[in-house]
């Protein structure tokens, strides 16, 4: 790709190279975008609450959370459409306070795309370059380059209303990328696309990001989108960040009950630690009195109240009692949801009034008759490392 910004080294997108990209773990790395103690209130509502965050050059960063969690406000403050009540936002060390949106080194792809309906595709893409006062030939060259980048060659003369939803999304992307912003902001970039198109576009977006080496910050309420695209995800709730981590850490090692519940499916069981050693902890649940064994977490002692979070696919379901299992519970199949790739079982554990466990079983054969049926007595089992212990 021509015209790469020189400052960012080409990296990731290829297997193990991607895994090596972790500037957040390197204390010497300099962040590109920093939020320091940023607070924003609308009337009596605190949208963003004393939030601190660092985003690194070349990162694909996702702000994930339910609506009203403050993620959109955070992005709009970065773009300059909202002003923080307190705190500091900086890009490349430059404080953004008092800098209007039209002088910020960010560009945004809007959720509605916000394509100018009275301009052609070319004029839409050229709009930002014209504001910079670039020479005509340079603008034409860049527009052509952008059209090629998003694979819309030949559609430059069309109006936005003559394009399909997917094409409009690409024009919006090309327009936001045309000025080569230091940070590209994406507001629910795939939200308006149907499922098939969304999947294809998702991979294109990832390729584009690593190809251009730009820093992307995305706002989304869709966890699949965040998991698939982002290097790191910030899960937000109530104007604060619940956890910032790579997708696999968010999923396998959620920091709070909120994160565990918001990202993916989870079984939550509350209990008290009855025994703790170097090798394991034992938890007794209330009121059912079930005993669960888990890996010992640091800083939790007998008597501490904990929540055990257990992902449905980590649990095995069998008719026969598994002799070797560390954790095993007898139960009865309450409900079966066939999802094609997976079947989700709801299993009632410990008789009438006991908790329902969700268990996901991959459908690895094409057999339609399943050995597990409604009301079957079954055993659930899982390893000690499968349960995540959360305080409280």
């Amino acid at each position, binding site marked *: 790709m021509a015209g790469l910004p020189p400052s960012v080294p080409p990296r990731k997108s290829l297997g193990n190279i991607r895994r090596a990209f972790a500037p957040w773990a390197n204390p010497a790395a300099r962040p590109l975008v920093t939020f320091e103690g940023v607070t924003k209130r609308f009337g009596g509502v605190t949208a963003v609450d004393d939030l601190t965050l660092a985003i690194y050059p070349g990162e694909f960063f996702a702000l994930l959370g339910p609506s009203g969690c403050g993620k959109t406000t955070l992005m709009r403050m970065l773009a300059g459409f909202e002003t923080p009540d307190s705190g500091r936002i900086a890009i490349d060390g430059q404080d953004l306070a008092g800098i209007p949106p*039209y002088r910020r080194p960010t560009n945004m792809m*809007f959720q509605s795309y916000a394509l100018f309906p009275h301009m052609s595709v070319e004029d839409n893409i050229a709009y930002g370059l014209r504001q910079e006062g670039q020479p005509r030939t340079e603008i034409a060259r860049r527009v052509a380059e952008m059209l090629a980048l998003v694979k819309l060659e030949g559609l430059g003369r069309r109006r936005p209303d003559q394009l399909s939803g997917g094409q409009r999304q690409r024009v919006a992307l090309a327009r936001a990328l045309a000025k080569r912003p230091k940070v590209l902001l994406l507001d629910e970039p795939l939200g308006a696309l149907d499922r098939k198109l969304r999947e294809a576009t998702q991979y294109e977006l990832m390729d584009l990001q690593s190809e251009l080496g730009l820093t992307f910050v995305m706002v989304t309420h869709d966890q699949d989108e965040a998991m698939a695209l982002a290097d790191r995800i910030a899960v937000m709730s109530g104007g604060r960040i619940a956890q910032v981590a790579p997708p696999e850490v968010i999923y396998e090692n959620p920091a709070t009950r909120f994160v565990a519940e918001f990202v993916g499916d989870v079984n939550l069981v509350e209990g008290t630690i009855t025994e703790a050693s170097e090798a394991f902890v034992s938890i007794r649940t209330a009121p059912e009195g079930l005993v669960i064994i888990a890996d010992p977490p640091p800083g939790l002692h007998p008597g501490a109240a904990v929540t055990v979070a257990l992902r449905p696919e980590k649990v095995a379901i069998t008719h026969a009692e598994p002799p070797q299992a560390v954790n095993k519970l007898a139960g009865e199949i309450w409900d079966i949801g066939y999802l094609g790739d997976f079947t989700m079982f709801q299993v009632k554990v410990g008789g009438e009034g006991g908790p329902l466990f969700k268990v996901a079983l991959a459908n690895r054969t094409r057999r339609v008759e399943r050995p597990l049926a409604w009301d079957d007595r079954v055993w659930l089992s899982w390893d000690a490392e499968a349960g995540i212990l959360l305080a409280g």
Partner: protein
Amino acid sequence: MNGLRAPHLVALVAGLGFLYLPILVLVLYSFNASRLVTVWGGFSLHWYGALLRNAALIDAFWLSLRVAALSASLATLLGTLAAIALVRFGRFTGRGLLSGAVAAPLVMPEVITGLSLLLLFVGAGLERGFWTVTIAHVTLTTCFATIVVQARLVGMDRSLEEAAQDLGAPPWRVFASVTLPLILPGLAAAWLLAFTLSLDDLVIASFTTGPGATTLPMRIYSAIRLGVTPEINAASTILIALVALVLVAASLIAKRNLLPRG
């Protein structure tokens, strides 16, 4: 709706007849060859010819057009500014007052508006004539222009202006390159509406004009006090045609606005 049933048809014809029969009669009699208004003497364009030779009527017509064009332009300008303030500036001090003040002339009896303007002009020592009528018509029509432009602005996606800013356009250039082109149909509709309101107005013009500045509706009104002549019918027909044309244009523009933009 699959076709009209008899009762519907009767109601429709009666309703339309009630609204338009008088106008239809007027238009028909403008083509009357007879000098007597109430007797049909065959088809003729005679009175249109006579109209063209009636210098006083022609003068009044041109004056009305000039007043209407100028007052409509000023009203559209002021109305646009007011609409932008009301729609885009959020909750500023005095917003409620501005909103009310803009809408008040809509419900104000024209006699009151005319009288108060007359008192103002007399008090200010302004010589009454073309300019006072024009100013009075701006007062009358600005509220209509504001409402039309306001509707267009409200219907416009705010993120379009944000996108323009985000791409590096300072506020005035955002307005010139994005906001203005997109609300232009609203501006045109507002102008046409203000134009027809001004062209039609008799009451306020009567209060605020002076010697030597007689608008067409005033000329027609004073002429029929001396007895209706088919010449006035012809003048009225032309006025009706003009107003109808402008209204059709306005509604076509408005309709195009409402079409989905993708």
